[in-house]
């Protein structure tokens, strides 16, 4: 266990707020979305109805989870018009801002697994069961095939994401046990196990944003002092290397991997301000080639 805590340099250089800016914004985003959903059942102010699977805002904006909708479609059922519009809105939105923005800015399980990861670092828990990061795509494929075969929206039978969100809004029951299981799994069994290796919801959203224009750029990568704090804190550390260390091979500086959640934590913890939000079109090499490069390096 190193004596120095992750982000200590940044704390010194940028102050507490500068080191936690994006984290704070994300928590505000996650909690206000949850708050909007809770406002109805708790205070009787109905701005948003439903949950993350489908919601209807102010009687005008339908939002449908495209992954759930696809599973339903594969069972042979076609949704009503509002449901379909909701799918289109969500697909366009997450394509524009980055697919896994859902994971880091919306999903309530992110708070659970971030906490597990933080605690894992603080307690100095080393060692983790190894599982390939592309396991989630296999599970994604299995749930789609399984939905078609069983005629049931398969992943929704056990999906901890919807169980937690639905539980908070419609009544928890024993759903907390599933959430606790995910927390303990990430803490003791597998570092970044749930969101980083297993969850097919995140995998699906990642695929939506595969060519998303918004990404994190290691714009000042020449200033990098190899403190490794960004790798320590990143939920998908494999995405950083091509962007940060790709100067020699002509890769980067924008992170192109669809696994990147655009959480901005690397921006926070970097004392040298290497990272910033940018556009994938700001890359040194053409996007099409970089896309090929990134598919070759991601998912491992």
């Amino acid at each position, binding site marked *: 266990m190193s004596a120095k805590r992750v982000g200590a340099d940044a704390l010194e250089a940028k102050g507490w707020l500068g080191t936690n800016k994006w984290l704070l914004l994300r928590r505000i985003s996650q909690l206000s979305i949850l708050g909007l959903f809770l406002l*109805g059942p708790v205070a009787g102010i*109905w701005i948003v*109805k*439903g*949950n993350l*699977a*489908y*919601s*209807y805002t102010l009687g005008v904006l*339908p939002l*449908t*989870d495209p992954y*759930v*909708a696809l599973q*339903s479609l594969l*069972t*042979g*059922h*076609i*949704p*009503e018009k*509002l*449901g379909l519009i*909701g799918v289109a809105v969500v697909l366009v939105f997450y394509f524009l801002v980055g697919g896994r923005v859902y994971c880091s800015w919306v999903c309530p399980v992110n708070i659970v697994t971030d906490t597990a990861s933080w605690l894992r670092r603080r307690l100095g828990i080393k060692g983790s069961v190894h599982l*390939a990061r*592309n*396991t989630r795509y*296999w*599970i994604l*494929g*299995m*749930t789609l*095939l*399984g*939905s078609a*075969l*069983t*005629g*049931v*929206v*398969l*992943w*929704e*039978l*056990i999906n901890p994401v*919807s*169980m937690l969100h*639905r*539980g908070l*809004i*419609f*009544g*928890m*029951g*024993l*759903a907390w*046990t*599933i959430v606790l299981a995910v927390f303990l799994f990430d803490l003791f069994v597998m570092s970044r196990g749930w969101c980083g290796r297993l969850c097919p919801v995140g995998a699906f959203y990642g695929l939506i944003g595969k060519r998303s224009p918004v990404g994190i750029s290691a714009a000042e990568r020449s200033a990098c002092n190899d403190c490794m704090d960004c790798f320590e804190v990143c939920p998908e550390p494999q995405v950083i290397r091509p962007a940060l260390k790709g100067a020699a091979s002509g890769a980067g500086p924008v992170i192109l991997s669809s696994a990147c959640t655009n959480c901005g934590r690397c921006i926070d913890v970097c004392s040298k301000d290497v990272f910033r939000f940018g556009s994938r079109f700001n890359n040194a090499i053409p996007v099409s080639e970089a896309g090929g490069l990134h598919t070759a390096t991601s998912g491992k």
Partner: protein
Amino acid sequence: MATTDDTRPVAVRKSAPARRQFLFDTARMACGVGMLGLGLGLYAKQAKALPAMALRPPGALAENDFLGACIRCGMCVRDCPYDTLSLAKPETPVATGTPFFTARNVPCEMCEDIPCVKACPTGALDHRLTDINKSRMGLAVLIDHETCLNFLGLRCDVCYRVCPVIDKAITLELVPNARTGRHAMFLPTVHSDHCTGCGKCEKACVTEVASIKILPVAVAKGSLGKHYRLGWDEQTKAGGSLIDEKSMVDLPDRLPEGMKLPGHYDPGSGATAAPGAVQADMPPGMPGSSAGPVPSAPPGLGGPSVPSTPLGMPGSVAGKVPSHPPGLGGGK
């Protein structure tokens, strides 16, 4: 997997160990995720077994289709004005997150505008349902004749009174009360072509455990079979007998010697016995005996023509009980 006849340049050929590793990795992943899938699939099969007491909202597709169509958003729950619906929790024996209600707790109030169906974004609640009276959430079954108060001869009638489709979905059928010998039983009788399965009868049933319950239609309903025809219906439809009755062999009617049944049609001879030609020795109670009691009537309901009623029994004194409801007396 090393192939000796590989003609590709050495640089293109994947090294054998790398290819082996790739195949092993793929196999490992396929098997591991396959096992998870198998588990989920079997769980899905279990999830389809909806418990009989859990009812789906109006317009819900058949359970098999419903679990593929419902995305568990809870919009129907939100738009139900009576808080009838709830989403299944993981520990509920209903597929997690899907809407259901329990009639004994909160029944469906059968809103005319059916807001729950309108709110459904997927059509898991079928938007073609626009008349709530056509919904079939289940079917009421008066399942326990031993505890139903009306079956005990009392006038509870609560299920009948609360029924939103009163006199169509539930009617009261009058039957003589064999126990008292002088009363009627008003048996609540459910008619499946009108019952929506809203559950108000089950909710209102006064017995400690409901004697009338809503069951899934598939559980509650029998079926005659496709080949089955009701002779009298077919005869009415055809406007006459469907067979050549002249050539029909009519077996002798087993009646007491020398007796004839008035109005009886004998297809063999084509003759009909004259109505009213009652034989003098015909025992009372046979059809056509003018003063006979209801055939199945217990003692006490019979008219004055019952010869065997012992003295002192009800009905023996002129056969008239003052409180007799009209239509039940022997002397029609």
